[in-house]
């Protein structure tokens, strides 16, 4: 009997305990049930747009979604809604659905705020870089590198955080120098990069190491110095041609200015002469002819910071290389300057070439008055101070100024005159042709000022002077033609009037 009780005890008690441990069975949610789920007020959780997007998906993507639901990477209708609300193109959606890291980290029910990818990070108290919309736009994500490309691990595994060795553990927020090396693992490897973008350079690290930015970061261990993510961002890195990229031409000034306009960040940095590094470059650039062209007119050919300073090797151009930066675009002016007397004089004084007269960040639109020689004028002031001995300088500058001013004034005068003559019905085609020649000569003359040679300048100005002479003649001729028309009209009217008068008198005589 005791034996029977023992046997029953051995068999039944564990069975009862086991039975008691069993919770009521809950059916795992299906994709269909998530799509049809309703909130407490009876309103559908999946919006109409999300539903329409789902209906438009191909069978493969629907199956991937189904699998994600079955494996419980997607377990809540709100989570499904978040993924559908991205409205991704099929290729991107496939990448997302095959990426278990992104699926799991976008589920608000299982993630803490600091680990949650959200379409609206602020409302979930997540960090700004955990923006799911940005992540799916990231060039690395789009190339299939996904989270594991940097963070390691296996995105196809059901669970796990098998980080690669390179990923620093603690302290990575304090010393950012590791980032450049980390990115360079791939970006300095031509063979690896060739798989994704054969046109992309792989010398960024080498350039950066030698640049003042790189020196500050890697040698002086100054954490204020920028590294890759400072300019390119963290998640959501886009190609430089993408207008939303932080390094897109029109956004470069603000990106650089984020540090260089901040006196606090720039405190302690100095120019080669020991003066504190100014922080007004961005403000000056915005006002300059280049800033206006790029930022206001949207002319992407206009230079941003990196076009003169370089990007990964960003450095202030030295005195000798300023003109080289300018000559990338203003080649004619630069070559004329190189062959001029000014070149030697500037070298003697160790003056930066272009910026001596035109400035650097605040380059204003040039004006013919710069050639004037009176007090306060650019040429005159400089020459009175530094080239007193040469009697030819001031008369040459005066000659340049007078010739260009004359051409400019003539061009305006003839344009106004030809508009008036055209309205009177006169043929202005010959005048327009001459005006084209004059404009051409005027533009060239303004460039050839940089030869600082009367003879060279004269060669391009002479056709302009000739065009003025011819246009003067043509305008006079057209005015004469108009006068002839008026005189002809007056004569005709007189004749007709005489006829009218004689008919009137005849009528009176007949009817008397």
């Amino acid at each position, binding site marked *: 009997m005791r034996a029977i009780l023992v046997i029953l005890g051995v068999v039944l008690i564990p069975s009862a305990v086991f039975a008691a441990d069993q919770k009521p069975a809950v059916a795992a949610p299906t994709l269909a049930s998530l799509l049809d789920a309703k909130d407490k007020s009876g309103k559908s959780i999946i919006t109409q747009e999300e539903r329409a997007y789902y209906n438009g998906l191909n069978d493969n993507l629907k199956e991937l979604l189904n699998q994600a639901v079955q494996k419980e990477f997607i377990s809540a209708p709100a989570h499904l809604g978040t993924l559908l609300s991205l409205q991704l193109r099929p290729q991107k959606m496939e990448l997302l659905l095959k990426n278990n890291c992104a699926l799991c980290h976008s589920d608000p029910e299982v993630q803490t705020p600091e680990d949650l990818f959200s379409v609206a990070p602020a409302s979930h108290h997540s960090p700004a870089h955990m923006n799911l919309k940005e992540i799916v736009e990231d060039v690395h994500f789009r190339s299939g590198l996904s989270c594991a490309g940097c963070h390691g691990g296996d995105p196809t595994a059901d669970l796990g955080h098998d980080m690669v060795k390179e990923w620093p553990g603690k302290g990575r927020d304090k010393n950012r120098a590791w980032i450049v090396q980390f990115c360079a693992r791939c970006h300095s490897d031509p063979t690896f990069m060739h798989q994704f973008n054969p046109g992309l350079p792989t010398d960024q690290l080498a350039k950066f190491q030698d640049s003042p930015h790189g020196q500050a970061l890697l040698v002086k261990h100054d954490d204020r110095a920028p590294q890759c993510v400072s300019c390119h961002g963290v998640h959501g890195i886009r190609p430089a041609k993408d207008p939303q990229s932080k390094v897109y031409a029109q956004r470069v000034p603000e990106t650089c200015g984020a540090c260089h306009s901040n006196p606090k960040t720039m405190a302690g940095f100095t120019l080669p002469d020991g003066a504190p590094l100014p922080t007004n470059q961005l403000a000056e650039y915005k006002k300059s002819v280049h800033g206006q062209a790029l930022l206001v007119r949207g002319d992407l050919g206009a230079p941003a910071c990196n076009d003169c300073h370089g990007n990964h090797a960003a450095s202030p151009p030295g005195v000798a290389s300023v003109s080289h930066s300018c000559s990338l675009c203003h080649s004619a002016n630069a070559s004329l300057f190189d062959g001029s007397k000014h070149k030697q004089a500037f070298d003697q004084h160790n003056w930066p070439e272009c910026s001596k007269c035109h400035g650097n960040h605040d380059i204003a639109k040039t004006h013919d008055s710069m050639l004037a020689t009176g007090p306060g004028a650019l040429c005159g002031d400089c020459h009175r101070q530094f080239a007193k001995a040469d009697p030819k300088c001031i008369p040459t500058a005066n000659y340049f100024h007078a010739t260009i001013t004359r051409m400019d004034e003539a061009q305006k005068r003839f344009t106004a005159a030809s508009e008036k003559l055209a*309205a009177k019905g006169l043929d202005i085609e010959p005048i327009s042709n001459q005006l084209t020649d004059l404009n051409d000569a005027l533009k060239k003359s303004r460039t050839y000022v940089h030869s600082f040679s009367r003879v060279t300048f004269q060669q391009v100005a002479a056709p302009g002077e000739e065009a003025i002479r011819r246009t003067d003649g043509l305008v006079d001729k057209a005015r004469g033609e108009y006068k002839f028309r008026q005189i002809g009209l007056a004569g005709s009217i007189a004749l007709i009037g005489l006829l009218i008068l004689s008919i009137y008198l005849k009528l009176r005589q007949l009817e008397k």
Partner: protein
Amino acid sequence: MQSGGSRMEGLSFLKNEPDKNGAEPGRGLLGWVDRRYQVTPLLEFMRHKQVPLGSHWMGWYYLGGITMFFFIVQVVTGVLLLMYFQPGEATAYESIHFLTTKVPFGWLIRSVHSWSAHLMIISLTLHMFSTMMLKAYRPPRELTWVSGYLLFLITLGFGFSGYLLPWNKLAYFATTVGTNIVRSVPFLGDWLLLVLRGGQDVTINTLYRFFAAHVVILPLAFVGIISLHLLFIQRQGMAPPISAKVAPRGMKFFPSFALRDVLLWLACLMLLVTLAVFLPYGPGIPGMDWELGSKADAMAPAYAGIKPEWYFLWEYQLLKEFPPHLFGLEGPQVCLFLIAILLGIWAIIPWLDRRAARNKPSPAFSDFGWAAILFLVYLTLMGWDIGATGAGNDMSLVQRSARVCAWWTLAAGVVMIAFRSWWFEHRWFVLTGAALLQIALHGLMGISYLLAGAISAGLAIIVIAASYFMTSRPNETGTT
């Protein structure tokens, strides 16, 4: 007034027999011609031909002659233009450009041709309305009216076809928009468009057929019909006025009237050359501007707010006032139907105006003419965006423009009624009142143009029917 009998006597030359007065053929050149062609009766006819005078202003009689003068100018300058114009994709624009810039006086010929075209339409319109107001269309001159009406339509055809010939950008797009209207003709629309354009789109083929129409088809038709028109006038004489108060008298056509005609023609010539020299591209009003501009380019974007010539502006505006769909038909179809009815009524007025046919004043038809003027003026002003330049499709600006145009037209209407009642002693203003009511409802109250028109027309019909039943005859107090 010249009696019908004496007129017929004057026309005896048509019988190709000697004058019954027994005038003998003279000597010299005239005698030589007369012996062969019996011109003495013709000369006699001309000697006796008289122009009737009445209580009305003589000036209206000269408008037909002035219109003919402008037509002659068109023929002469047109032939001169033809000597240089080369229709063709690569030559049409270029030849006109060459003519106006390089050919001596080429600019003058083109400018005079353009000015004369517009002045001809102005004088023709005035001629038509004066004929309408004076009831000169009444029997036996119904066909004179109809032939004049056809000449008016042909003149509009001249304007439309000539506009494309310089093959410039403005002309190209205006013609594209203009020809597109025929698409709304029921059943035949698409076919008519093909015929008009010589293809689906306006191409150089369109220019070829517009050129043929402008220099051959329309001139032949015009000359044929104007010959009939003149023959009718010579045969029947000018219409005497309906006036019971002033005894009819006459003015000798030769030399008194003819010399006055010549005098006016010379004054018109003076005006024409003055305008051509000082405003060679027109007065600068939209729809009255012929600066050559750039060459036609089918690929170029169309002008924003492109408008037709001023004399087509009322139709253009009327089309805009129609909704896309009405009575199960397309809006433009209904609009074209309405325009066809209005033009049809205008054509058969001599048969509709039964009182004028009995030589009695017909105030209702006078009022119809004045109402038509207000109708055209209001639509034209709106077409010009008066009060809101460049209104385009901005509804608030369109309404502002309608309000300004309504005020102007209402003011003109009030002045018109006051003048008519004081000067002509008119007392019948039902149709003018209806036109002004429609303008006020649309322009000032913001009611849709068609609804305003329906309300006004309905009220006018009620008033006319009521007065008909109350008096059994229309009011006769008014005079023409």
